[in-house]
């Protein structure tokens, strides 16, 4: 490995000279010091309660996809901790949705009991005593109302509304009906950075959810740094940067890491030879490695860029023309506060959400949604970003018409190879964090995103000033 200089205040800047435009620029450094974070944050009930009261109930969090509620009356359920919400499409506009607590005002029954559905009768009907609610949440009918004393129901009890917002066809929910920030304010620079992507064209390839034995932050921490990649994802070493990734910190707890892909990195002494994994990467997108035999290993990204741009044109994705070469190939991983990571590739996106357990801070819910751009023909395989090598070839001619059900993986391999590699470790880390011997994480500067969102939690709780 060649000698690499590192100044923690500068970090690694993956696009020297601003070659990927202002959105690819390195963000200013924030010095969070070197003290290990308090490990009890990752398992104490008191901390979980503070997070719940001061953060979860007052913060925007990703809740679902507009493509899952295409028709008026379609709804989806979003569970967060001990609460459950229902988001319903109320009109034909791109943002015509409303969100409510999934609770009947009569006796507290859940109004919906599955992940998706459709209110074909134009209302929600409670299956306990038949109370009905319109799609705007207002009370439509109290069955046998004559048996109620008027003062019991004179306020016409309806569904309790929460704040919902849509950005680029993705839905966020904030339980606070009067949030401190609008959704766009909360997302800080991310909408500007990703304005040239059309996420409405993505379709769900896989949607899994699991309850695992780890605090939501323990799990999140595993996915907002790439320092782990050499050991956890060794298959990626031939095709991906491991060390020289760029880590950026933004407002409202937002952060990003950029993982450059598609060339022989500084992990190798011989950076001239093009390895077989890189050639396969080109082939997977329909390219011919022979066309790029003139390129050295360290410059092979040009082959990937060229191949993926041709892929985009072939399948009708004009928005590729607006993306920089780096955006076409690299992984731009955003983490909107508090609990989400978004691996943005030109042709696919991996959404990961880390949600608190209702009662046990040493457990949490992990939801991973893989989204891909459909292909235009019947023979091109869709590329599964959760797999390596030949196994990344998905179904040929995939159009994404049949939305797969959200499933609970029963075996590790059902996560997809890449995520299974991470999933294996997460519960193990939780056990170690709770050990008497552990004094707290000694974080590198490549793990600074961890400090960044923890500081934002502190601002929510009031431990740090805004």
């Amino acid at each position, binding site marked *: 490995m060649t000698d690499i200089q590192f100044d923690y205040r500068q970090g690694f800047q993956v696009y020297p000279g601003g070659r990927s435009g202002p959105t690819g620029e390195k963000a200013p450094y924030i010095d969070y010091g070197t003290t290990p974070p308090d490990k009890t944050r990752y398992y104490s009930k008191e901390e979980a309660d503070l997070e719940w009261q001061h953060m979860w109930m007052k913060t925007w969090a990703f809740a679902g996809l507009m493509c899952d509620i295409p028709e008026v*009356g*379609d709804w989806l359920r979003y569970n967060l901790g001990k609460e459950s919400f229902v988001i319903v499409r109320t009109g034909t506009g791109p943002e015509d949705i409303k969100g409510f607590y999934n609770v009947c005002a009569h006796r507290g029954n859940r*109004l*919906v*009991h*599955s992940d*998706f*559905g*459709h*209110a*074909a*009768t134009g209302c929600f*009907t*409670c*299956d306990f005593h038949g109370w009905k609610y319109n799609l705007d949440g207002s009370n439509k009918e109290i069955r046998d109302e004559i048996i109620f004393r008027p003062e019991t129901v004179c306020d016409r009890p309806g569904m309790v509304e929460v704040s919902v917002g849509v950005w680029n066809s993705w839905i966020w929910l904030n339980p606070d009906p009067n949030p401190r920030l609008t959704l766009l304010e909360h997302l800080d620079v991310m909408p500007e950075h990703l304005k040239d992507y059309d996420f409405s064209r993505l379709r769900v390839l896989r949607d899994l959810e699991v309850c695992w034995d780890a605090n939501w932050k323990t799990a999140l921490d595993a996915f907002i740094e790439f320092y782990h990649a050499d050991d956890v994802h060794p298959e990626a070493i031939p095709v991906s940067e491991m060390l020289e990734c760029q880590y950026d910190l933004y407002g409202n707890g937002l952060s990003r890491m950029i993982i450059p892909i598609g060339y022989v990195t500084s992990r190798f002494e011989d950076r001239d030879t093009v390895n077989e994994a890189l050639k396969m990467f080109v082939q997977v997108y329909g390219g011919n490695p022979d066309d790029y035999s003139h390129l050295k290993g360290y410059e092979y990204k040009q082959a990937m860029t060229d191949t993926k741009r041709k892929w985009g044109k072939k399948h009708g994705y004009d928005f590729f023309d607006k993306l920089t070469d780096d955006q076409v190939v690299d992984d731009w991983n955003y983490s909107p506060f508090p609990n989400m990571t978004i691996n943005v590739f030109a042709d696919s996106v991996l959404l990961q959400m880390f949600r608190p357990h209702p009662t046990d801070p040493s457990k949490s819910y992990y939801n991973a949604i893989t989204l891909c751009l459909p292909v235009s023909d019947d023979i091109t395989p869709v590329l599964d970003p959760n797999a390596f090598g030949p196994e990344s070839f998905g179904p040929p001619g995939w159009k994404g018409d*049949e*939305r*797969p*059900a959200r499933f609970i993986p029963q075996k590790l391999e059902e996560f997809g190879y890449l995520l299974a590699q991470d999933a294996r470790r997460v519960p193990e880390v939780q056990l170690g964090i709770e050990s008497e011997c552990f004094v707290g994480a000694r974080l590198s500067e490549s793990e600074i995103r961890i400090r960044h969102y923890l500081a934002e939690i502190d601002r929510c709780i009031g431990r740090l000033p805004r």
Partner: protein
Amino acid sequence: MTAETEERWADVADVADLGPTGRHVCELDGRSILLCRTGGDILAVSNRCTHLGQPLEKGRIMSGRIYCPHHSACFDLRTGEAMSGPAVTRLPCYAVRVEAGRVWIQAQ
């Protein structure tokens, strides 16, 4: 199809009847049956939710499941299993054959 098997199978609809919605309601022996296309197959289930007997035909179909539009009971279209929601009883399913553009279901 032989005369003997015709006694056990009933011609209930044309494939074209499923139309753009991918579903069609037909009757067999006085029972309302819902035909629906999912995952490239045509499936047949009772059109009555086992919760309160409400019609399922306008329910959302996703990923091989149907969601009752009334109280969100969810059934697997291939097995009839009540997956979630207030229904606890399996939804009756019917074997389906498609021949020469016609949909046949097996009378129970």
